[in-house]
């Protein structure tokens, strides 16, 4: 297999461990006087966007940042719970840059690019340093040093955390850095603005069309470069752990302007979410993977067992993850834990009213922590009741906010009864294809964080999304963007009355007018829910050829119906959340089809992509390295017309092997 000539990953030469250091020392620079004349547009203000916007502004570039929320602090990175990985080896448990690199490549089922992942590992430690310097209050031990915990797919403790609110604290750190630059006048912040399209001038990205969501007015903005930090597309499934506003629109518009879309079918289904309770459900809530540090997952050994959990004796419980994967137990990677839960439920062992749930049980952990506390306090004959009280205190300290959240949503107390959990769509490994510099196939257009496809292969490990978002924004783009902008120092700002800007704005206006003129009979949500069901049933945790082919036809039909029968109330020239949703769902209706095409093309199972036709006898994912060790980068050629380009994945430093956590 040869890499398509259209995909130059620009990976530096040399030893893996020296590539980034050498690159940083030799990448062309832009001098301070020239930086002042260069404008950069950053779309999205989550971890990737806020950290990039702040860092670039600190360096002297003129930055314009955009978010659709009312404040940059509300980007969905805020909801990340468990933690952020870094190869600090503070626990002296054998961690290293290489080990984090290796775990990430293996966790991604050998479908990520070696050089990018190694760079991610190298800068991971700097992230923790930077965040602490900003005043991010990470969890600490009594000695005053930083605390760590374990996440899935690793055998070391390298996850830094702030209770169950790590994403919030990291984002508020990046947000404060961003707001500092806003105050200094180095960043102009546009809140409640949505990017509607990329503006191309002479084959390069030179700006965006944005819609002011309050007035409805379209605006033209010039930039020497455009950075998309717009997150993932999990909301194509309607029900996911994403925020209601999370969307693919910016990335999709870029795709239609020439940016290839990488591995769109790689979706992460997170194993521990609160199960669906009814048709009214608008989103799903994650229970952090950190809960698998101490919680034990089980189902009854008897099918259709209707006894309450605490009446099922120990020997009638099947701790299926510990049974199937003794080496990693409850801490297997997410794709494996999710499939195992689905397998048990499909086989009739599920619990709860819907039978689509498994137990996540804290009884053993409460008792264990109770004993530890009793020892600490010198209580040698502590009663069971005392052990329970002390154990619950420890669990509360570690996971209190998650337990509270579970109780608010379900009305059940997880300190007393096991939680019921089920997998849900959480993250998308796929995204815009980028080279080593994070540039898409469109010159001057970059993608950072979850919006790109780069570092997680076919499955992301827990606590690695925060790491990647901040790595891209703080420590990668500030260097790599110099490679492009150093050639652009003579480019004067292009006036926004240039014909390219006028034409791009007109095209956006035409689409809005078309949407508003339909005045059909069904709401936007009606179509979004229908699309979500198709995707979940046929392009979700398990896929097969027949289902995918059906899904493609069903999505096409649904898209046609949407464009002839959607109803958007109100006016386009005012605050109109229904119109915002309509634009996003229109893009999901195209992306969904491409996801199915990609899943159909990939005749193997790997990571989060599980094709039922390709599995081992034990039901594990069966990769086909001979034919599919490549990144599928799709080029948009027109309505329902995509051309596949392949980037061969070459492993020079890791021996590619069947992934085993047994």
């Amino acid at each position, binding site marked *: 297999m040869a890499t398509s000539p259209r995909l130059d990953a620009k990976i530096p030469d040399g030893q893996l461990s020296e590539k980034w250091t050498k690159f940083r020392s030799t990448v062309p620079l832009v001098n301070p006087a020239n930086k002042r004349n260069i404008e950069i547009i950053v779309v999205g203000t989550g971890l990737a966007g806020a950290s990039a916007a*702040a*860092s670039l502004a600190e360096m002297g570039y003129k930055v314009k940042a955009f978010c659709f*929320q009312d*404040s940059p*602090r*509300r980007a*969905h990175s*805020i*909801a990340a719970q468990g933690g952020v990985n870094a190869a600090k080896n*503070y626990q002296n448990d054998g961690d290293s840059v290489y080990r984090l690199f290796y775990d990430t490549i293996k966790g991604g089922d050998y479908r990520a690019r070696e050089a990018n992942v190694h760079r991610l590992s190298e800068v991971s430690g*700097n992230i923790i*340093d*930077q*965040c*602490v*310097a*900003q*005043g991010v*209050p990470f*969890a*600490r031990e009594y000695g*005053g*040093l*930083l605390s760590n915990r374990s996440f899935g797919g690793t055998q070391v403790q390298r996850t830094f955390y*702030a209770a169950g*609110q790590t994403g*919030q*604290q990291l984002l*508020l750190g990046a*947000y*404060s*850095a961003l*707001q*500092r630059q*806003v*105050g200094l006048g180095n960043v102009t*912040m546009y*809140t409640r603005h949505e990017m509607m399209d990329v503006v191309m001038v002479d084959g390069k990205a030179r700006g965006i069309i944005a819609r002011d969501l*309050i007035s409805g007015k379209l605006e033209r903005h010039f930039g020497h470069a455009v950075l998309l930090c717009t997150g993932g597309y999990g909301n194509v499934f309607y029900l996911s752990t994403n*925020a*209601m506003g999370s969307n693919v629109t910016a990335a999709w518009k870029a795709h239609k302007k020439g940016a290839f879309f990488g591995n769109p079918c790689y979706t992460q289904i997170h194993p521990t979410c609160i199960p669906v*309770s*009814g048709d*009214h459900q*608008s*989103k799903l*809530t994650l229970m952090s993977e950190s809960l698998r540090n101490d919680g034990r997952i089980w189902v009854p050994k008897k099918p259709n067992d209707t006894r309450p959990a605490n009446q099922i004796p120990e020997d009638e419980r099947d701790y299926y993850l510990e049974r199937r994967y003794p080496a990693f137990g409850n801490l297997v990677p997410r794709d494996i834990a999710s499939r195992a839960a689905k397998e048990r439920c499909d086989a009739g062992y599920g619990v709860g009213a819907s039978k689509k749930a498994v137990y996540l049980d804290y009884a053993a952990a409460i008792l264990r922590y109770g004993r530890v506390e009793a020892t600490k306090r010198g209580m040698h004959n502590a009663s069971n009741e005392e052990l329970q009280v002390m154990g619950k205190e420890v669990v509360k300290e570690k996971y209190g906010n998650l337990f509270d959240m579970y109780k*608010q*949503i379900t*009305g059940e107390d997880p300190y007393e009864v096991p939680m019921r959990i089920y997998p849900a769509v959480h993250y998308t490994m796929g995204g815009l294809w980028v080279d080593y510099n994070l540039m898409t196939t469109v010159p001057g257009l970059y993608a950072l964080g979850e919006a790109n496809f780069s570092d997680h292969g076919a499955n992301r490990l827990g606590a690695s999304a925060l790491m990647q978002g901040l790595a891209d924004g703080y*420590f990668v783009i*500030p260097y790599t963007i110099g490679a492009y902008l150093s050639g652009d120092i003579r480019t004067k700002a292009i006036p926004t009355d240039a014909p390219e800007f006028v034409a791009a704005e007109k095209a956006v206006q035409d689409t809005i007018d078309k949407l508003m003129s339909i005045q059909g009979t069904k*709401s936007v949500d*009606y179509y979004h829910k229908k699309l979500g069901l198709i995707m979940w049933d046929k392009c979700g945790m398990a896929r097969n050829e027949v289902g995918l082919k059906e899904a493609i036809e069903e999505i096409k039909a649904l898209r046609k119906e949407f464009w002839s029968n959607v*109803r958007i*109330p109100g006016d386009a020239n*005012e*605050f109109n*959340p*229904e119109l915002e949703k309509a634009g996003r769902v229109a893009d999901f209706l195209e992306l969904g089809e491409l996801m199915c095409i990609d899943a159909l093309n990939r005749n193997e199972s790997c990571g989060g992509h599980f094709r039922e036709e390709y599995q081992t006898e034990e039901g594990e994912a069966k990769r086909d390295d001979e034919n599919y060790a490549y990144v599928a980068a799709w080029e948009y050629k027109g309505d329902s017309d995509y051309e596949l380009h392949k980037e061969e994945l070459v492993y020079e430093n890791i021996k590619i092997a069947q992934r085993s956590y047994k």
Partner: protein
Amino acid sequence: MNLTLKVWRQKNTNTEGNFENYDVQGISEDMSFLEMFDVLNERLINDGKEPIAFDHDCREGICGMCSMYINGSPHGPNRGVTTCQLHMRSFKSGDTITVEPWRAAAFPVIKDLTVNRSSFDRIISAGGFVSVNTGNAQDANALPIAKEKADEAFAAAACIGCGACVAACKNASAMLFTSAKISQLALLPQGQAEREMRAEKMVAQMDIEGFGACTNTGACEAECPKGISLENIARMNREYFGAVLSSKEHE
């Protein structure tokens, strides 16, 4: 369950608003308060009417976007939750529920239940940060911080910036919000260098934005979905007066 909703409708910032009544039927107690609004909006759209505009995003209590004033309380009757975490099992069939936007001069209404809270961003811009550029940091463990201090700083940093404290206050004061950030950074060694300047600038910005004064009623703490403590306000006052006394600008 069946409910009557009395909801504030306002076309935009420049028009007057008024309450309108809506009957909603067949609500499940497992729905969140916002999902109940989804049901109502779906019906309004199907009836050819304009849905009610309200802010929301993460729907898991952390983004701080949702902001409904329900039966006289920000985020409704339950303590320690945001509107999106309020479930209908907290109400009875037959209830009449009044829903308004946050009311404060510094939070102008954009439409219906949606308000503009960008004043909060400007308060942070005034000084709610540590001035440390990317790449300036030393090794994270080179700076041990006592666990108690770190925990206290975390408790203050847990603020989600929703503005319930302002909505709860009869003076529409932003003291709890501002003090939470000042406290977090005053408690940590990283925040010491800019400590005095931070307190002065953030308080000054709070006044410029038109937030009211604090009269110590404690309503903000009681209504805060994240349990941000009044102690932060006391600490901010100490920081502020200390700063003013020693400030060169005031000599």
